C-alpha cells in the first residue's frame, strides 16, 4: 500500500540526535534552507551520553515535506536518530527572558503581578526595567509577551522549543527505520 500524507500545514517538532562532530549543526540546518523552509526555532544541547547532542527543530509544513526533511536528516552520517514529536505524545517547552519597561511603582507592581499569574520569575530589577523569566509552552510565553507589550518590551531572548516524549519510549529506541538508515552508514 502506498503511504498517505496529511497535507495540512502545521508546526512539526523534530528531535534529532547527532554525534557531536564539527559542522554537524550547519549540516542539519542546511537541509531546511536547501528546500527553502524557514526554521521556526532550533535548539542544540548536550545529552546524557557523552559526545551526543540533541537538536530540536520546529518547522511549519505539511507531512510530505516533513518526512522528506526527516529522511534527508536521517541519511546524514553524524545523525543517530530522528523523531517526529507531536503535541499529544510529547511535552514541549521553551524558556524566555523578557526585559520590560517599568519606570514607576505602578507599572512595576502590575508586571510583578502578571509574572506571578503566569508563574514566571523576576530575575533582574533596575530603576527603569524588570526582566521576567518564563518557562512553559510557547502559547504561554506568547500570552505573557502580549500582555507585557502594554508596558513596553525592550528585548526578548528565547531558547526555542525543546521536547521530549511522554512515557517510557525514548529517542534511543531501536526500530526498523533506524536499521534501514544504518544500511547507508555501514562502514563495517
Amino acid at each position, binding site marked *: 500500500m*502506498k*503511504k498517505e500524507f496529511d497535507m495540512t500545514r502545521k508546526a512539526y517538532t523534530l528531535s534529532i540526535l547527532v554525534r557531536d562532530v564539527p559542522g554537524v549543526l550547519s549540516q542539519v540546518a*542546511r537541509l531546511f534552507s536547501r528546500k527553502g523552509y524557514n526554521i521556526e526555532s532550533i535548539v542544540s544541547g548536550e545529552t546524557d551520553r557523552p559526545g551526543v547532542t540533541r537538536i530540536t527543530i520546529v518547522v511549519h509544513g505539511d507531512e510530505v515535506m516533513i518526512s522528506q526533511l526527516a529522511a534527508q536528516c536521517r541519511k546524514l552520517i553524524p545523525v543517530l536518530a530522528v523523531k517526529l514529536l507531536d503535541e499529544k505524545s510529547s511535552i514541549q517547552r521553551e524558556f524566555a527572558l523578557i526585559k520590560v519597561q517599568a519606570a514607576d511603582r505602578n507599572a512595576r507592581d502590575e508586571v510583578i503581578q502578571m509574572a506571578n499569574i503566569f508563574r514566571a520569575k523576576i530575575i533582574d530589577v533596575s530603576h527603569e526595567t524588570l526582566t521576567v523569566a518564563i518557562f512553559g509552552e510557547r502559547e504561554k510565553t506568547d500570552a505573557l509577551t502580549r500582555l507585557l507589550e502594554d508596558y513596553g518590551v525592550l528585548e526578548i531572548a528565547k531558547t526555542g522549543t525543546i521536547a521530549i516524549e511522554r512515557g517510557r519510549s525514548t529517542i534511543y529506541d531501536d526500530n526498523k527505520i533506524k536499521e534501514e538508515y544504518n*544500511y*547507508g552508514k*555501514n*562502514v*563495517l
Partner: protein
Amino acid sequence: MKIRATQAIMECLLEQEVDTVFGYPGGSILNVYDELYNYRDKITHILTAHEQGAAHAADGYARSTGKVGVCFATSGPGATNLTTGIATAYMDSSPVVFLTCNVAEPYLGKDSFQEVDITGIAMPITKATYLVRDAQTIPDVMREAFAVAATGRPGPVLIDFLKNVTAPSVEIDYEFVPWTQNRRLGSIKALADAHELKAPEPNSDDIDILADMIAQSEKPLLICGGGVVRARADKEFRELAEKLDAPVAITVMGGGGFPGGHPLTAGMIGMHGSQASNVACNECDLLIAVGCRFSDRVALQPETFASQAKIVQIDIDRSEIDKNVLTDHHIVGNAKRVLELLNQRLGQYSHPEWKEHILPLRQPSIPRVSEQLTPKQVLETIRRLAPQDTIVATDVGQHQMWSIQHFHFDYPGQLLTSGGFGTMGFGLGAAIGAKMGNPDKVVVHTTGDGCFRMNCNELATVEHYKLPIITVVFNNGTLGMVRQWQHLIYHERYSETTLDRGPDFVKLAEAYGLKGFRVTTQAEMEKAFREALSAGCGCVIDCMLDMDEMVRPMVAGGAHITDFLLH
C-alpha cells in the same frame, strides 16, 4: 613508529591499495607533493591540465574499476575547481576521496591568499568532509574517509589538511593497517559503535513479501538502475530477469547493469526512453526498481508513473524510498545481496504474452533521412569496429543519449556518463581515469562540439601520458540538445545555441601532438576509426553532422511517460 605526517598520508593511501592518483599541485599542498616524490615508485600521479579534469578522472577511474578514486588539489581556486567534479560524483554515487590542503592555522579565517572554506562549500555535495587540524588524527581520518566513500551508498568525501599539519617537521605515531583490517579500529569503530551498526543484512520478511508479489504478477517490469552498477550486481540482476521472464528497462545510470543485447532488454526508460520501456512502465502490474531513485528524467510525471502497478523499490539508501515516487513496498539493502536472497526464493516464471506485447516495441526510432553523415552511422561504425568490451565515456547532451541508445553495454563500468548532474566536459577526464584503471581496454570518448570545447585542455594529459583514447566529436555546430528543445518547445528561437566558431578540432588535436581526422561520410568515419584504433596514441575524430538531428524518441519534462513528443 614515528613518521612524518605527510608520510602517514601516503602510507594510508597504500593501506587502501591506491596506486594511482589524479591532481594538480599548488602552494598549500606543496608538502604533500614533496612527500609524493618519495613515493613516486608506488603511487602514480597523473597531472591534469585543470583540477576539474583531475576530479572527473578520479571519478572515471572509480566508476570503471569499482575502486575508490583519489584526487589532490591545493587550497582556494584549486579546491573550488574541484567542485563541479565533486558534485558530479555525488549525484552519481561514485566513490572518490578528494584531498585538499588549506592555509596554515594562523592564517585560517583571515581571507589569506588562496584561502577558501572548502569543507563548507563541499558539504552539500559530499557524503562527509573532514578538516584536519591535528596531525595525530590523520590515520583515523584517512581510514574513515575511505570507508565512508566506499560503503553504503558510495559517494565522494573531502579531506582538507591545514598546511601546518603537513609540515615536514610534524611527526605522528603510525602503524600500517591494511584496509581489510582497519574496520574495527579508531574512528571507524567509534562511528560504528555510535550507530550500533551490525553487519548489514536485508530484512528477510521484506524479501518474502516481494516474492509473493512476484508470484501474483502477470505483467512484471524490472528497472535496472545505477545501484546495480555500483553494487556490481549484474549477474544477480540477470538471474532475476531470466527467472522472472520479464522485460527490463534500463536507466541512464543503469547502463552496463544488464546486457544491452539481451532478449529481455526493453531499452532505456524515461525522457528519451524506448517505446517498449515507457509503454511497459505504463501498463505493468508490478514494477521492481533496483537501485533507481526515479529521478525526474525517469519518472517524468511522478503522480501518473506506473499508475497501474504495485511499485517496489530496492535501494541501499533509505532516504530514496518514497522520495520521488510513492512505493507499495521497499527493501533496503545492497542490490547484490538483496537480489541474491530474492533469487533463492524464486522459481522459474514465464510471461510470453506480456513479453510479446512489449518487446517488439523496442524497434529503433525512425532515422532522419539526411545526405550528411548521421549520428547513427557514426555510432554503428564504432560499435562494429571497436571490441565489444570497449569503455565508453560520454559528455552530456544529444551525443550522450545517442551513445547510450546505440551501444550495448554488457558490464558495470563500461558506460561512464554524468547522468545525475549532467556535467558538460565530464567525458575526457573520465576517459583518462578509465584508461588509467583499465589499460588493456579500448576507451572511446564521445562528445559534442559544445562539451568538448569546455575541457579539451585535457588533450594535453592524453598526449603526455600516451593514452590512446579516441575522442569522437559529434560536431553539429550547435548545442544540440538545447537546440532540440528550442526547436520543439521554444518556437525555433535559437537563442545562443549556434556554435559557428572555432577551433578547428583537427588542428587542435595536432597542436596537442595527437592525431586528428575530419569525417563527413560513413566511409571516412570507418577509415578514421580503424586508423585511430591502431594509432597507439590519442586521436580526435571530428564528425560533421547536421545541426537539425534530434534525439528520438522524446517525452517532454513533466509529461506522461507515453506522451511522446517525438517518435
